[in-house]
């Protein structure tokens, strides 16, 4: 497959708000079920082990007209819940047999209850991820939650999740994580060969197709992109942070790149690499997943920092990526991203790393101010880095 066709396919899948691919997957065999999940993290392995398709729901972006969703939220609440409600109330999520709402923030938390009110009878589960990282405490709690999820999925018509099937799913997702890490390595090494927009599309597409298909898609992309001869640009290298839930429009990412910034690391579609490395494939797989969550998760605003130094992870990511600055791009009214930002800023200031910050909405259509801001930032970085 050519690079262009891989990207075109990824874009088609990523923004198919009718979820045709999910419908086709379900129709291909009787009794197939699909379970939606919202950002920021969901244990997709458990859904997969139940023989179900995990489907990432990232709102409607800038591709949906909001008719009913706005009536459900006040103006000072971010945009993703209203477009997600729109998807649900317009019937577009009819192909789903259930929805998981992870403990990302109070908006997604409350959305789980709204779901119960607006769509009675629809399986909506809030997924309380542990904020205690002791194996005997948070680990035990999380393992119990995973087991409860597995038995709920069985009630919804999924296959019983056995140790064996869960181990097999973990192995498949480990392969996926390896490929995603390879994608990020390529971006860091040669951002001109694997631009942020393409990586984003691939990861979004991976949230609506079976993991086996996504692994093949990533292989094809890594091969085609790695062998590509796209020219390197004289861009500065930046890390993007804050966009882990409501996603910016594609045009916004393109705007940043065109303004002279190679985004060499970001926190978009974090579910694809929330667990930093492989989940052990031996032993009790529920425990393995639970412990991986405790000990191998990325640092993120939705996860309590515990004893970790706030921002240390971001500084390390900047160093690892050889980046010259950070762009904070947070959705308007996003408590997690915006409350976290001053702490991350302090860490960057201590480390002498330049940054700039702006807010967006998933349906924003105004890119000129961002183009100017990102362009100025890129220019100033180049100026600073001159001997």
């Amino acid at each position: 497959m050519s690079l262009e066709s891989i990207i075109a396919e990824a874009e088609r899948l990523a923004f198919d708000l009718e979820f045709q691919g999910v419908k086709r997957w379900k129709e291909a065999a009787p009794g197939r079920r699909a379970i939606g999940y919202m950002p920021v993290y969901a244990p997709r392995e458990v859904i997969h082990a139940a023989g179900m398709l995990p489907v990432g729901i990232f709102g409607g972006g800038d591709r949906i007209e909001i008719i009913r969703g706005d009536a459900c939220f006040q103006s000072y609440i971010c945009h993703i819940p209203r477009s997600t409600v729109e998807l649900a109330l317009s019937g577009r999520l009819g192909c789903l047999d259930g929805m998981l709402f992870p403990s990302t923030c109070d908006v997604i938390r409350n959305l789980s209850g709204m779901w119960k009110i607006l769509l009675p009878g629809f399986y909506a589960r809030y997924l309380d991820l542990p904020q205690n990282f002791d194996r005997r405490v948070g680990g035990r709690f999380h393992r119990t939650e995973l087991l409860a999820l597995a038995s709920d999925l069985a009630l919804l018509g999924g296959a019983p999740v056995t140790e064996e099937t869960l181990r097999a799913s973990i192995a498949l997702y480990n392969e996926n994580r390896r490929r995603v890490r390879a994608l990020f390595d390529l971006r860091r090494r040669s951002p001109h060969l694997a631009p942020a927009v393409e990586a984003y599309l691939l990861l979004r597409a991976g949230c609506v197709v079976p993991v086996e298909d996504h692994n093949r898609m990533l292989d094809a992309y890594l091969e085609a992109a790695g062998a590509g001869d796209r020219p390197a640009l004289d861009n500065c290298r930046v890390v993007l942070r804050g966009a882990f839930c409501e996603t910016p429009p594609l045009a916004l990412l393109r705007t940043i790149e065109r303004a002279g910034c190679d985004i060499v690391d970001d926190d978009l579609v974090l579910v694809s690499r929330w667990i930093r490395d492989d989940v052990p494939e031996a032993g009790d797989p529920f425990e393995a997943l639970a412990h991986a969550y405790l000990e191998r998760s990325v640092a993120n605003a939705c996860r309590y920092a515990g004893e970790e130094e706030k921002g240390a992870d971001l500084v390390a990511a900047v160093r690892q990526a050889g980046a010259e600055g950070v762009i904070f791009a947070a959705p308007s009214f996003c408590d997690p991203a915006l409350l976290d930002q001053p702490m991350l800023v302090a860490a960057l200031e201590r480390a002498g790393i330049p940054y700039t910050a702006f807010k967006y909405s998933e349906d924003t259509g105004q890119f000129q101010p961002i183009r100017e801001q990102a362009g100025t930032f890129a220019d100033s970085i180049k100026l600073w880095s001159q001997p």
Partner: protein
Amino acid sequence: MTRERAAKEPSMVRQKELIAGHYRRLARAREAGEAVVYTFVPGNLTELLLSFGAAAVLPEINALQSGMRGKSADYIARAEKAGHSEDVCTYVKCDLGMSLAGNVGPTGEPIPRPDLLLLSYTGCFTFMKWFELLRQQYHCPVAMLHVPYVWNGEVTPGMIAYVVDQIRSEVLPALEKATGRRFDEADLSRRLALSARAEDDLVWVLESARNRPSPIDAYFGGVYYIGPMFSAFRGTEEGAAYYGALRGEVQERLQAGRGPITPEGPMEEERFRLVVEGPPNWTSFREFWKMFYDEGAVVVASTYTKVGGLYDTGFRHDPGAPLESLARYCLGCYTNLNLPSRVDLLERYVRDYAADGFLINSVKSCNSFSAGQLVMLRELERRTGIAGGFIESDLVDPRYFSASNIKTRLESYLQMIAQKRLEAHHPPAAAAEGRAS
């Protein structure tokens, strides 16, 4: 009655003394060798802190006090200048701004630095960020107590075990370290018995609003009644005595058939009985209250008075099972309930308190309260057959309190209730005549 000389119930005066005494204790905590623990109102473990001899600082209470004293606008501006977004909860910014301004408390005395941040992570995401921010500022230990969300309307044994495990493995060791004292379970149990006594009295007071006229306002007056219970006085003799006295005072009014005391004296005629969901606005608290009592509107039940503990559905602290009881308490706080449970509670209030209507005050700061309130409103309307009212403001950011907007909305809501009442008693034609006369 002038603004300066607001009428007060004796309990309000007593409460003011209690709170002032607490701030005095805080100001002297260092000299007295007392450990200072910052914690949050929902899921506060006051009895446990007291059993360790620790003094509690509740940053939300500082923020609301700053709001009432007209200081919050300046504090918020300082925090925003220091890089905090205008989009986020103003309680946090008010608190951070207060500390930037020297951390002087509402009584003019300094608030001491924390020896421990007890992050009772109950019902609000912002709490986590708030104490992460404070940890950066004070470089002190944090004990995280993650209280699971009661997402399906049911407290499970796994949830209780998780909270109890954390109290044992995180909270107790952190308190032992901060105070240099050993955990004394007998003292905790003794305090929980005092709490339960006060809780009985508080529930009696809140439920007195079922009477007509209601002897209390369960929102504007209610926030005073919950003060000692939600802050540093649960599990104390003073707290228990306060609630005993409060109950006596309300009982007297009830027997005399009198309504609530407003800042302008006893409320004359009870014309409207309302249930209110959402926190009040603190920067214009008196003005906000006046809009209600001027119209004869009394709040007979509110959800805000349940954020620091939900007692009127039967929960009491239990000296026989101290840690489990603390866990159950945390799990049951109002903002830790899912939206359907919140609607159930509101529906129950509308019916049990024979309310004429319900009103949501949606505050910009608080996603925990506010996200989903429009859906709650419609669901409640569907279930009760009563149209609800919706107003918007903020807790401590005066920029979001538009008195004229709120007044207009409230007045038209009350007019609508009056009109419906009239139509129910008279056919529309007769009602029209009545208006014309």
